């Protein structure tokens, strides 16, 4: 009798198969997948607008490729420091993790600074949401597509810097250890995705 009730009871209990670690990671991956669709749609729309325009100004004549190649370099470096931060905390080194997170934040902030400099430079030279510089001919849709795509990415970097700062503050308080660090890994997923998207934006908007 006793054994039957135990069996019935165990049949009722549903054991969640997703642990807090794997659930958080899967959630971030799903968010990144939907975000990838947003960027995919923006880039596809850009391609359609550009291909159906009668004339399109060559990006290398309007935009500064060397500056943005430098920005690509910067984001790749900050991806490396991010992954080094995760490696450090998984080996139990809290201070090294905080130093690496600090460097990652620095990379993100310098990236945003360079983007602000680039936008200011382009706007003062005549590339606005509705106009092209006077000496360049082509569709005026160059401006809106450029500012929408790079702006959407810049918003992601801004969000990433805030996210990194929150995790760094928790790290400085000693929240993360060799045994408890899945939130650092989830942060890493987001930050590497921002880097990955920039690689695509750099190719499709600046180089092609």
């Amino acid at each position, binding site marked *: 009798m006793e054994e039957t009730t135990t069996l019935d009871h165990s049949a009722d209990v549903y054991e969640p198969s997703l642990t807090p670690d794997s659930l958080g990671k*899967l959630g971030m*991956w*799903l968010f990144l*997948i*939907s975000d*990838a*669709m947003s960027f*995919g*749609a923006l880039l*596809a*729309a850009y*391609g*359609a607008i550009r*291909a*159906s*325009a*009668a004339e399109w100004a060559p990006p*290398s004549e309007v935009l500064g*490729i*060397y500056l943005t*190649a430098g920005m*690509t*370099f910067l984001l*790749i*470096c900050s*991806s*490396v420091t*991010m*992954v*080094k931060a995760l*490696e450090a905390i*998984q*080996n139990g080194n809290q201070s090294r993790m905080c130093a690496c997170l600090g460097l990652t934040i620095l990379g993100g902030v310098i990236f945003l600074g360079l983007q602000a400099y680039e936008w200011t430079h382009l706007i003062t030279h005549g590339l606005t949401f509705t106009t092209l510089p006077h000496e360049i001919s082509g569709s*005026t*849709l160059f401006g809106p597509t450029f500012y929408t795509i790079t702006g959407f990415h810049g918003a992601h970097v801004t969000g990433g810097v805030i996210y990194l700062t929150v995790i760094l503050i928790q790290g400085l308080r000693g929240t993360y250890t060799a045994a408890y660090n899945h939130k650092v*890994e989830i942060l*890493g*997923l987001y930050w*590497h*995705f921002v*880097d*990955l998207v920039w*690689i*695509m934006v*750099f*190719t*499709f908007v600046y*180089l*092609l």
Partner: protein
Amino acid sequence: MEHAHKEHPKYMRIFVILIILTIAEVGVVYLPFPTVVTALLLIGMACSKAAYVALYFMHLKFEQKTLTAIVLTPFVLCVFLVFMLLPDLMAGDRHTGMTASTSHTVETSH
């Protein structure tokens, strides 16, 4: 298992590969290749860079294969999206009614 998780891949090697590909991308733009060749090279290099970031930095290579399948879904959908936009692009090439109406809308909005 726990030990295997702490073994990290050689990130500096990935870093060097990504930097070399970035320099190669900028170089290809200034080489006198036909536009199609330049475009294919650039897209190829961008996709390999993205793959390196996802596989090593995001550890996709070391996760269960099901996650890779889930992650590849948006890219399949993006390819669909491009094919859905193709009729519009081909209309632009032939300067048919589609382009005419589009340019008309642009003109009136100014």
